[in-house]
């Protein structure tokens, strides 16, 4: 119980720090949202002072002392009211986030779970049969693929499977000619559009899970209790899964918890490359457009989900491994 309260206190403290940082960081960027909009316009020719005045009137420029703004902001955060987005003006931040979130959770969330499950299973197999092709092949290709920067993998897939072979659509989350709705066609289309970004994330993240699991597993396989189980003549599968893997999975589980927390932030580069309308893309646009309200809502969402994941992993660890509670 004391352990739980300690962790909860820490959670609240970090949350407050994150919320506060979240308020100050965007304001340290030079220029205002109106400046960003005007700079974009001025590439196509000089912008008149009237246009500037109208844009400033539309987007508004934060007023009042920084302290007043901070208090207002805390109130808004408490009510989960993030106001109107500048880049998508006059759409509300809430409506933009709720449009983008399902795509990100669907794509990045499912792929992350898949990568973790597949990678961990391969890792177990690789460690159990270490030295054979079952070990070297996945370990080598996995580590090779994970050394690529993932936007590079994304670009290669996009170019070859999308533009050269025309196997998969290259952009968007569904074909423009498909009518959105709960129909077989629409779901199939969504899936087709998700293939390339999903493949990118899978390919680049699989290696980490494989190697993590394999190494932890090899470690536990050298423990006395495994040797003892072997000496008792238990079946290989039982030893691999019940004795070794169960203990070896702990560090991977921590990693998984944290990665899941990060899912909400989406995958900025992958979403950018594939024009996928998720949170990552939204965040990119928010930063480019100095869209404070949208940026704050997104950063906060990401921070809170990582913090919650962190908190849950802590609790889970406390349950699984009593030593951490001391």
């Amino acid at each position: 119980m004391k352990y739980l309260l300690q962790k909860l206190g820490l959670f609240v403290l970090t949350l407050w720090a994150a919320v506060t940082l979240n308020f100050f960081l965007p304001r340290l960027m030079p220029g205002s949202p109106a400046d960003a909009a005007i700079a974009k316009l001025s590439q196509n020719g000089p912008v008149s002072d009237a246009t500037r005045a109208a844009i400033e009137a539309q987007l508004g420029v934060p007023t009042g002392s920084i302290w007043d703004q901070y208090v207002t902001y805390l109130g808004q955060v408490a009510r989960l009211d993030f106001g109107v987005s500048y880049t998508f003006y006059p759409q509300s931040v809430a409506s933009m986030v709720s449009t983008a979130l399902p795509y990100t959770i669907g794509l990045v969330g499912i792929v992350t779970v898949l990568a973790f499950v597949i990678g961990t299973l391969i890792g177990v197999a690789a460690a159990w049969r270490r030295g054979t092709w079952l070990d070297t092949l996945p370990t080598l290709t996995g580590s090779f693929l994970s050394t690529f920067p993932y936007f590079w993998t994304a670009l290669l897939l996009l170019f070859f499977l999308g533009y050269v072979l025309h196997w998969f659509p290259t952009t968007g989350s569904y074909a423009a000619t498909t009518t959105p709705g709960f129909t077989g066609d629409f779901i199939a289309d969504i899936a087709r559009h998700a293939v390339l970004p999903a493949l990118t994330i899978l390919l680049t993240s699989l290696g980490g899970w494989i190697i993590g699991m394999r190494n932890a597993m090899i470690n536990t396989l050298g423990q006395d209790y495994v040797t003892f189980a072997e000496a008792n003549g238990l079946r290989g599968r039982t030893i691999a899964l019940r004795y070794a893997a169960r203990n070896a999975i702990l560090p991977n589980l921590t990693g998984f918890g944290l990665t899941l927390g990060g899912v909400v932030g989406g995958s900025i580069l992958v979403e950018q490359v594939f024009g996928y309308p998720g949170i990552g893309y939204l965040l990119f646009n928010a930063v480019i457009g100095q869209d404070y309200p949208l940026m704050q809502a997104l950063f906060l969402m990401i921070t809170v989900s990582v913090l919650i994941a962190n908190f849950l992993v802590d609790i889970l660890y406390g349950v699984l491994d009593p030593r951490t509670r001391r």
Partner: protein
Amino acid sequence: MAKTHMLRRWRRAAIVGLAAAAVVLSGCSIQITSQPDPSIGDDTMLINADHGNPFFTRNFNPYLTNTRTASRWIYEPLILVNPLDGTLNPWLATEWSQPDARTIVMTIRDDVQWSDGEDLTPDDVAFTFQLLKDNPSLDIKGAWQHLASVETDGDDVILHLQSEDAPSLSILGLTMIVPEHLWADVKDPGTFRNEKPVGTGPFVLGNYNDQQYSMDKNPDYWQADSIEIEHIILPATNSQLDTVSRGYDWAYAFISDVEGTWGAASEHNAWWFPPGGVIALMPNLEVAPFDDVNVRRGIALALDREEIAETASEGYMQPAGQTGLILPNQEEYLDPSIPDEGMITQDADAALAAFAEAGYTLDGDRLVGEDGEQLEFALTTANGFTDWTRAAQTVQSQLAKVGVKVTLKLPQPAGYQSAISNGDFEMAIGGMGNGDVYQAYNNLLSSEFYVPSGEATANNFERYRSDEADALLAEYRETVDPARQGEIVQELQGIVYDDLPVIGLYYGGIWGLFNDAKFTGWPTADDPYMIPQNYDSAPLMIFTKLERVKGDDR
């Protein structure tokens, strides 16, 4: 044992790596071809006009900053200006007159209907101007910086100006007109998204989803006979690869090696890149030594504009002269007494002579002042504006050859904008020039925009002040005689040429990409009837000029 194992691993890794490298290298020789969507009919145009985001938010309020591009083809202006040369084309106003420099009378076209069947009336025009007055955030072209009041008289709308202000015609003419019978009930026009737009334009909104929308021909359009396009499709995302491979009929993008990419993708692909502005070095005239005209002249003479234009625009754009005019668009305004059409050519000796006038002499490979310090400054441009950055780098290396040390500053676009507005720079890269010559010189030179460094201004970022220029600009405003206006423009050119408030480098490009398989009649250098950009109001004119290639001709 362990060693051979390691070696075997390395060999495997090397083989995998080589295979991947081969795949990547072979990619370089793969030609992307255009693959048009077969479901898009011959009467349908695919345009990459509305870009940036994978989401389309449903916003058809034509006065908001991120309105959907097509809202400017649903609503029409009174006068359609060609930004290339400032030509005024009658649009919802059939004609106009300026009985004096304080009054503009516009006659409103009388056979125009809104797409819901109601008639367009002069009252709609008066209502629109009142709407912009009541909601300053919508007044994006600044009509009420010029207007005093608006009244209707039969088919005419009479615009009373605040002062003698003849050039305001082209700004007031840009005002897009909205229907009174629908907009009068809008509670807060400043945040109104206008999801079901009703306008006078050639198209009405068709299907809409957040990845793509379409427009259908408005059968009751007042120029319906001239519109041969039945539908327009606008997809949400348009990467450069998409632009080349997706079979666009009309695209707008700067593309590297346009001939080998856009040109090679289809035999029907054509392009026209006219100059649309002047990219210039903008010294902060309040910062020493740029307050000395000899230093500015030295810099101007030290630059090789051919090389700058070539590097920055990949050779698509020409070097710009020192008159502030965009040539050849504005040739008619050129002062014949200015040598070489205002072009300053590189001349290292003359540059050093000019620097010497300002007290800078060459010491080894450094240009030093009387205090022995090297002449050096920071050049600010915006991160991500790649052509500007390449121009800045070329300027840096060319000035290094005459002993001037230039460091580059590349803030994000918002930071750049804030720096030049507030005078927080020594030298910056910026745009000048405009199809409307008066506006070009007014924005550049008028001391109305002057505030000292540290305070924000919207124009005249270099912080120039000259009584002579102010007097000429004031006289232009009061003059309705085109001949006298022409003389004033020539005098203003002389000021820019002699006083070098900014230093012209090269022209900024307009990147029009067309495909003439389905539609012909695009603007060209021989027939520059409109700027070839597929956003803003320019397409209104181009849509009326395009003709369908019928089955037999194909």
